[in-house]
């Protein structure tokens, strides 16, 4: 039995043959690494995913966290999964060796985390939040805060949360109502409610570190008046031991469609006036602190979307090879045994679509993570800056595109299973429910689209979009002479021209003051540009596969590379071509939706 959730062969292909991640070992920070150690990290993630997380995932889904006497109980199987992840060192993997880390490059780290998410994204959520909280304190915390809170987070002794949303405030964080007032001793007293808090309470770790956004009494209105605080569940004494409970109450649990292994809480802070909070960074600079790690967090959500899709695809392929039903259309002899459904053209269509989407989404997220590495460790200053520019424009796409389209892939994985896919006896329905969250949290897809079209595509006079188009054109030029890919090069060149035209038309509408109209089709824009980006990355994959085939890849293995070429062809002919009407709507700055009066619904 191969991995239940990923194709390790594909991960290696994408990481090394396409993205050349082993070249990172030449950089000072990764000097001790080589392909072997990078693969060892990946293998470890695959092993834990298959042996621990995947078997435990249905338990976390079925026995969702319960509230008992004010405490949240999580099933023991999920304790076991979290321990496997933390003991293996994944929270601290990117840190320096002398801080318990592995100095793992971002692209490898994201691949490893992606594998864990493919098996159980909800459980991996505990790890993601803890890592994000620790990273944030690493950048913005005081030495004392690092010692008391960050170090136990990296060690997995405490788990972390991110408390942004409130019952009445989600997308528009400027309106939050949580308050913090100075207590006179350098600490603050925090009060208010936070909604949707993942991991807001649990019985896995000895303490919980909440990072909470709240407003100080003198806060200016809007997003410029938000401050960031550490609020531990139990106060932490100066020597690191745990003190009294810190007046953080679980007011209720949310009962979710999926993503259930991680508790989701309505938290009430300071009901008794005793919630001690510690300011992180400067007053009113909370959102800026948070956004410091937004790139990574958004790529992380993209990876989740991509890899849940990937797990569904992996399961669908396995099922289609085993399930026998019907006979080939050109040989219906009823005395012959039924054939595995993978032989039917319509099932092939469903599998190929899933493959093209999920492997494309993975390429998108890994490419972003690779740019993260360039942004932080490239030796050349220009290369670092360019990577940052490309990330600006790619990050909203990496967050939203996988969530949008891998959801379709997850739906097709159910379809391939027929009636069985609609039951809880097979994992594909859980994967479908789990993935549905990714379009909602970490900035809804709608908010990402507005960020992309309203800011990222326009900033610095469109410099980021121009850089992206240059990258795409460079790859088109490099593939142009390969007969297998010439058709795709033409299609991609045409599509880039069209999206540039549409962007210019939208810009012109904005310049005329039609700001509302210019943003009305932002989601369509994100999907269309996303398709162009994923098509570009398919062209890259196809070129690497074409190279391997020319060099006479081992004969038994050429199906892998021919599969890559076929998925690339599918993506160009069925998916990218299908975006043409959307791009035409964008170029017209169509206002069908925006013109709706609210009373017309």
């Amino acid at each position, binding site marked *: 039995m191969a*991995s239940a959730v990923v194709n*390790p062969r594909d991960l290696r292909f994408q990481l090394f043959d396409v993205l050349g991640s082993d070249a990172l070992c030449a950089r000072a920070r990764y000097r001790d690494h080589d392909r072997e150690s990078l693969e*060892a990290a990946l293998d*470890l993630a695959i092993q834990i995913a298959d042996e621990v997380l995947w078997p435990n995932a249905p338990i976390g889904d079925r026995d969702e966290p319960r509230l008992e006497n004010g405490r949240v109980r999580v099933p023991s199987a999920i304790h076991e999964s979290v321990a*496997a992840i933390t*003991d*293996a*060192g994944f929270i601290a993997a990117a840190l320096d060796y002398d801080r318990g880390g592995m100095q793992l490059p971002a692209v490898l780290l994201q691949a490893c985390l992606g594998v864990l998410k493919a098996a159980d994204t909800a459980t991996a959520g505990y790890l993601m939040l803890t890592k994000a909280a620790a990273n944030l304190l690493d950048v913005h915390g005081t030495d004392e805060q690092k010692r008391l809170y960050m170090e136990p987070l990296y060690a997995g002794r405490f788990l972390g949360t991110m408390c942004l949303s409130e019952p009445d405030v989600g997308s528009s964080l400027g309106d939050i109502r949580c308050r913090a007032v100075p207590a006179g001793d350098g600490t603050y007293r925090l009060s208010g409610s936070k909604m949707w808090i993942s991991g807001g309470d649990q019985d896995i770790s000895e303490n919980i570190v909440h990072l909470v956004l709240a407003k100080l009494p003198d806060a200016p209105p809007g997003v410029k008046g938000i401050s960031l605080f550490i609020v531990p569940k139990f106060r932490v004494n100066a020597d690191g031991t745990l003190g009294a409970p810190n007046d953080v109450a679980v007011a209720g649990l949310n009962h979710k469609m999926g993503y259930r292994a991680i508790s989701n809480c309505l938290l009430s802070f300071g009901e008794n006036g005793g919630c001690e909070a510690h300011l992180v960074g400067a007053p009113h600079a909370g959102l800026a602190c948070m956004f410091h790690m937004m790139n990574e967090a958004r790529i992380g959500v993209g990876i989740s979307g991509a890899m849940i899709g990937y797990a569904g695809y992996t399961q669908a392929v396995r099922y289609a090879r085993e399930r026998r039903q019907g006979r080939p259309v050109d040989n219906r002899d009823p005395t012959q045994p039924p054939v595995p459904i993978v032989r039917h053209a319509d099932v092939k269509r469903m599998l190929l679509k899933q493959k093209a989407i999920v492997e494309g989404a993975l390429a998108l997220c890994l490419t972003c993570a690779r740019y993260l590495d360039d942004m932080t460790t490239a030796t050349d200053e220009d290369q670092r800056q360019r990577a940052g520019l490309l990330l600006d424009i790619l990050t909203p796409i990496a967050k939203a595109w996988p969530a949008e389209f891998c959801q379709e892939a997850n739906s097709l994985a159910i379809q391939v299973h027929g009636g069985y896919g609609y039951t809880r006896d097979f994992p594909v329905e859980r994967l479908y429910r789990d993935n549905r969250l990714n379009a909602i949290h970490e900035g809804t897809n709608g908010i990402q689209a507005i960020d992309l079209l309203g800011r990222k595509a326009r900033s610095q006079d469109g410099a980021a979009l121009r850089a992206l188009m240059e990258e795409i054109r460079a790859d088109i030029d490099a593939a142009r002479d390969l007969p297998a890919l010439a058709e795709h090069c033409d299609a991609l060149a045409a599509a880039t021209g069209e999206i540039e035209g549409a962007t210019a038309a939208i810009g012109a509408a904005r310049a005329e003051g039609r700001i509302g109209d210019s943003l009305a089709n932002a989601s369509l824009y994100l999907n269309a540009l996303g398709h162009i980006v994923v098509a570009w990355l398919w062209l890259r994959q196809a070129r690497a596969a074409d190279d391997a085939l020319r060099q006479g890849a081992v004969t*038994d293995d050429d199906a892998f590379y021919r599969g890559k070429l076929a998925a690339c062809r599918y993506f160009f002919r069925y998916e990218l071509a299908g975006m043409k009407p959307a791009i035409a709507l964008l170029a017209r700055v169509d206002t069908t939706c925006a013109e709706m009066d609210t009373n017309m619904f």
Partner: protein
Amino acid sequence: MKVLVAVKRTIDPNVKVRVKSDQTGVETANVKMAMNPFCEIAVEEAVRMKEAGSANEVVAVSAGADKAQETLRTALAMGADRAVHIVTEAELQPLAVARLLKVIADEEQPGLVIMGKQAIDDDSNQTGQMLAALLGWPQATFASEIEFKDGTADVTREIDGGLETLNVNLPAVVTTDLRLNEPRYASLPNIMKAKKKPIDRREADALGVDISPRLAIHKVEEPPKREAGIKVADVAELVAKLRDDAKVIG
């Protein structure tokens, strides 16, 4: 006490094995390899001995091609202190491996040699026994529990009828069964630390033993496909089928 733990690189147990089209063996090109699972159990046991204080050094040894080094790194990442790599591109059969291991055991003088009861590729289940015979040491195979006291070891073995406990004098050769322990995952920091631990490369040719194959492989085939099952009407028909068709009862 020093523990010598022998490990073998085999096809990853999660990979579906394919027979080469010329039937000379199984396909290993581009196939994921890993440490033989029984060897993982041996490494784990040795590391636990060190953690419990009954051993003070764990030395991993593997014989095989260059890539066997990766398997040794895994052992080092799990907690072995250093490794010996006996390098050879030659095909190695159990007797050859036992002879090579004897050379290393003579040099290292361990108090215990621990190794898998068999490797999942050829399932020979011979190397440990041969090594014990060559060394003239006691052997305890199929271990599911080991306890040390006063220069001896109580080894519980899994045998057909249940469990048998042997008391062996040390040094001895012990081979591991599945239930001995559950091997740990090597953590990320330990994977990096393993890169700094020494691996002593020894050319097999220079060890002065005959490693030429003694067995010839004529042909490798896929196991026969399982036939589809049938439904029987009642117990009488079942008994008849078992007797007349399957011939498993008289």
